């Protein structure tokens, strides 16, 4: 059995606003192996994004444990979490979140710049990644000049920039038509052959292709 890349033990996330308390995640325990395509499904507000934020080191669990690539995230400082995200996690967002003033190529180069990769090396790797997602001819285009599907492909190439062992995709097909969505699902499935890809999704097609599916309801796992 492969070593799990992601492991959560009773992970709980509570958001507080004044006296009001929202339990976004409630004692979630799971493990995800590598390589694998993992789906996290559930209705809106079930805690899918919160779970991805904890696993992606963007947020801290209120209680419980989250470990990624063998490292517990709870004891890390903010700077360590930032460095951890840079090297270990690639993100794909529902709204693509490309930087509007940068070209497709520059968007893909950005995480490598944060990681201290030399300009020449990051340019050639970014070009290779755009080639892989079928967008090499559109490398110099800005996000506004690309279709939704193309933007998401650029976002996937960007997520792979630093060759992370883990890619997190939050509703990656949510802003796409079904046909374009399918092509993105196929691309993510291909990426998942070499690393762990965890996808928060409503898409049935994607869930059917996943090696494991975690159902979330009201912040709890209902497998």
């Amino acid at each position, binding site marked *: 059995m492969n070593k799990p890349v992601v492991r959560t033990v009773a992970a709980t996330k509570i958001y507080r606003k004044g006296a009001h308390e929202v339990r976004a995640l409630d004692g979630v325990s799971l493990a995800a192996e590598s390589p694998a395509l993992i789906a996290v499904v559930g209705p809106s507000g079930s805690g899918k994004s919160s779970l991805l*934020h904890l696993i*992606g080191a*963007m*947020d801290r669990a209120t209680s419980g444990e989250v470990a990624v690539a063998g490292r517990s995230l709870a004891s890390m400082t903010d*700077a360590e979490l*930032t*460095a951890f*995200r*840079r*090297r270990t996690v690639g*993100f794909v*967002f529902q709204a693509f*979140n490309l*930087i*509007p*003033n*940068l070209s497709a190529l520059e968007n893909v180069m*950005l*995480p490598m*710049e*944060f*990681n201290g990769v030399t300009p020449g090396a990051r340019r050639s790797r970014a070009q290779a990644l755009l080639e892989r997602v079928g967008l090499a001819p559109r490398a110099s285009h800005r996000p506004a000049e690309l279709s939704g599907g193309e933007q998401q492909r650029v976002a996937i190439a*960007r997520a792979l920039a*630093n060759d992370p062992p883990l890619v997190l995709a939050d509703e990656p097909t949510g802003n796409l038509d079904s046909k374009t969505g399918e092509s993105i699902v196929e691309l993510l499935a291909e990426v998942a052959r070499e690393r762990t890809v965890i996808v928060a999704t409503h898409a049935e097609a994607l869930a059917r292709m996943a090696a494991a599916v975690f159902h979330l309801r009201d912040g709890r796992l209902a497998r």
Partner: protein
Amino acid sequence: MIRLGLRNAWRSKSWLATTAALIAAPVFLLLVLQAVADAVERQTAILKRTVDNTLQLRARGSMGHVNMEGNKDLLPQRALGIAQRAAHVSRVEHYLLAMTPTEGHNFAMIVGVNPGETKRLESHGEAGNPRLIAGRDLIEADRGRRIAVIGRGVARWAGITADHLGEATLTLDLTRTHPVIFALKRPPVTLRIVGIYASGYVFGDMQLFMPLDTFREVYGVPEGISWLYVQADSVDNVRQVEAALRRELSDAADIIGPTAAAEFEATATRTVRRLAAGGAAIAALLMALVVFFVTLVNVRDRTRELGTLKALGASGGGIAASVVAEALALAALGAAVGAALFALLGNLFAKPFFAVAVRPFLAPQYRDSLADALVLSGASGAQLIAWAALAAVVAAVIGSAWGVRQAIRLSPVEALRHE
């Protein structure tokens, strides 16, 4: 990240134009103020170069003429040493004076002077500049000898012409009186006239200069000084020299100091300098305020983008560099626009600005004259660029500080949720 910040500054033409205009206005104001302050500084420098920085000392309440009714008191001889030892003194000259009747109620002034020292004219601010028109001046070898140089008016009265110099003599009768002159019980003295000078003024030409040692012997004045001229090494130090002399000689001497430069320095220059500094501070504050609000708007507009950058692993330093780079780019553009406007319109605005913003704060005697005297010009290219660049950097760094803090402290999760 710096490149990203610079690109963001250019993200919209209207944003760029508005921000540049808002920053350009205080830069323009700052440069106009600087031009006014520079002009006044230049005026002061000219004044300092041209005004007399020499103090005159006389015996208290006396003109120091050794044979003049009520005015024959002399400065004590020790005043010379005190002046020579005082700090910031570059030159000390001392004189003895007497009067001699000429025709009717007129008279000529007799001056004892060390050879090589200034031939001062009493009638013209005591600091005239007579030029020799015939013969020669007094020289070191003349000390103690009965030799003199006379003004053109004295020569005319004595019937001495340039042709006869060297042989010509003039006899002073020290017993002759005039309504204000004592008759001295001293024998007449005949002086050989070696030079004639002209000052351009009738009264300035009515003087006779003889060596100081000769004067002492002729008039029987073994010690004491009629006039003592003390030159400060700089107009800035005149007051200090004057204070030092007052401490030592206040009981014995009247000290007459030049006031023009010092007063101008103390009133107009200082006032303008303060106004310029205050105005520059306000202009810099305005720039920083503009940058402050621009940065806050920028951070709010870019919240989601900043969240993405954080999610991708951008460090706090990288985020700060991006925000500061954008603020610097906008401030630099604003400064460039302000500087260009100043280069084009600065001279046009500077004088009205001076009239409205500076003139009311000046001493009355400078209100009307200073603006006309000022040569208001745009600073030289390098200076202009340096001032504008400095203002831009300071405003960008200070103004963006809060926005940078906000950006660094953004939670990536909260930022990504931002609509």
